[in-house]
């Protein structure tokens, strides 16, 4: 056997694709079909699925256009992770399979299923519209077409990474909170809102922000970082979500929503004791009524198990708290100066 033959055998093998199938017009429930095909190394999952559709089973429904990681239309769950089929190598996936040689392919989650591997994108588009996710130009209408709206390099840097989003919805599919509540704004929409809010040409900032802080908005994110981890363009989506929150606190204060009040409690407690005063956190976040209604039954159980957090007076401050308080206050001065500088720009 020559060396070249060895390479040839190693680089070609049988691969099974276990593909989610469901045609709502004829099937009562979803099922999986196994397709085993001989493939060469270097083939993407999308090419393999296209081969299956053309040569094995023409009823298989997939959605794909550019085949180059640009259009975002072929996002699906491959071995339980949302990603683009067109940029995913079969050989890479073979290393991650639970069953040797079997690659599992499912449609995206958190969006309504149309057929097999294709989901409905309308709910995502509707949310984009709901949060006014386009540049609503500040320029007076009479100047339109007569004048350029210039954006400096520095201004563009603020949302450069966010513009890499191709709306593939992989992050939407992996989102913890969207899975728990379908009305949640979702990560791709938050990313786009952030991108619009920091655009210096945009005039709908306050309006958009007012919508984002409502129920099912920016404060409902649970910081699980699944969106960021799955992003096919490696966009730091959580930075954008935190960016909206930072902006909301700066422009709208810390009292208007439970999310802002909750976040502010951390700042308050750290500045005073260096430690979080957990016993009063629910009241400071949601008020006495909510706390009694929602947490009283649990509080009783916790008292029995001696699990209740200590009352505020018994929370021991960190050692060296006096010096720390001075430092904390000094930093408040630095932040105030930063704000002055920013608003003077």
């Amino acid at each position, binding site marked *: 056997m020559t060396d070249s033959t060895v390479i040839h055998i190693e680089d070609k093998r049988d691969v099974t694709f276990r593909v989610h199938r469901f045609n709502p017009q004829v099937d009562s429930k979803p099922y999986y079909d196994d397709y085993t095909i001989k493939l060469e190394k270097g083939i993407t999952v999308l090419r393999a699925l296209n081969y299956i559709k053309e040569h094995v089973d023409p009823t298989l429904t997939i959605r794909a256009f550019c085949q180059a990681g640009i259009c975002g239309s072929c996002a699906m769950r491959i071995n339980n992770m949302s990603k683009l089929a067109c940029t995913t190598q079969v050989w890479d996936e073979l290393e991650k399979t639970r069953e040797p040689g079997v690659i599992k392919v499912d449609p995206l989650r958190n969006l309504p299923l149309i057929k097999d591997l294709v989901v409905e994108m309308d709910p995502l588009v509707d949310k984009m519209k709901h949060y006014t996710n386009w540049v609503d130009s500040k320029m007076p209408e009479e100047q339109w077409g007569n004048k350029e709206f210039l954006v400096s390099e520095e201004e563009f840097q603020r949302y450069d990474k966010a513009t890499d989003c191709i709306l593939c919805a992989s992050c939407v599919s992996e989102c913890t*909170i969207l*899975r728990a*509540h379908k009305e949640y704004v979702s990560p791709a929409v938050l990313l786009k809102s952030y991108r619009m809010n920091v655009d210096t040409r945009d005039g709908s900032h306050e309006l958009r922000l007012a919508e984002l802080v409502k129920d099912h908005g920016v404060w409902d994110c*649970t910081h699980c970082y*699944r969106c960021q981890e799955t992003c096919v363009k490696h966009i730091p989506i959580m930075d954008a979500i935190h960016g909206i929150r930072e902006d909301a606190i700066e422009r709208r204060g810390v009292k208007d929503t*439970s999310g802002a009040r909750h976040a502010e409690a*951390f700042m308050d407690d750290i500045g005073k004791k260096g*430690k979080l005063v957990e016993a009063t956190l629910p009241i400071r976040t949601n008020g006495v009524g909510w706390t009694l209604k929602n947490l009283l039954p649990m509080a009783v159980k916790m008292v029995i198990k001696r699990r209740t*957090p200590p009352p505020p007076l018994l929370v021991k401050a960190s050692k060296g708290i006096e010096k720390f308080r001075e430092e904390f206050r000094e930093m408040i001065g630095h932040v105030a100066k930063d704000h002055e500088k920013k608003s003077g720009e």
Partner: protein
Amino acid sequence: MKRYAYYQSCINESMTREVDRSIALWQNDLGIEMVKLHESTCCGGSNLDYVSPKHFALVNARNIAYAEKMGLDLVVSCNTCLMTIRSAKKKLDETPGLKAEVNEILKKEGLQYQGTSEVRHLLWVLIDDVGLDVIRQKVRKPLGSMRIAPFYGCHILRPSTVLGKDNPLEPTSLDLLLDALGGTTIPYEHKNRCCGFHTLLVAEEESLNVAAEALKEAMDEKAHCIVTPCPLCHTVLDGYQSKALKKNGLRGSIPVFHLSEVVGLALGYSERDLGIKRHIVTA
């Protein structure tokens, strides 16, 4: 005896006091000493970073600087504290201007943040420093036939650019440790998913749905218990368990253990000494 600066997480000083209590019991058996850092302050709990990014950098530079002063690594036993302090460290190490600004303020108490101490989870120390072979030798009561659902929690895995120890899609560290303790872990989808803790007070319904789904899968897979390296995950999965299940029309219950408790159990300590009786769900 290898020494570490031990970061005092707010929750472990209030609701989940059994974590520090169990570590104190067995640390000598494994040849490690956790020196409590009484100066440490709250890390910001994944909130301070957007209320005031500069205060976030200041408090965590100070937390790490105290460990550096002792020449020790900073060890943390709460996932969110781990992720938060490591995020601050990354920011400080990548932004010389911020580091200088913070250090100018920290001079007040004779501190300097250098970036020399690592910030590590207790789980990582057990695996990388104590070693699985040593742990295996020290086990007196193997966890045995119990089917364990390992629940890693988010902030020991994600963002991987900050954590980087486990593959967030297929984490193994907790499974390896539980195996060394003589336990049997089960594969299940929720092992790297979220518990819902961080929205408990802001979007309770969503959080309870998240928790219920995780608990349901563990019970459906016939796990006898869940083990987590994070006291926040424990608070949801144990403390809010009956509320989450009830809200979702589910029945049953499943005990949830801290990582530090199962280490103690395997080393021969009693449930009472480890503080397991303090759990809401009876183990």
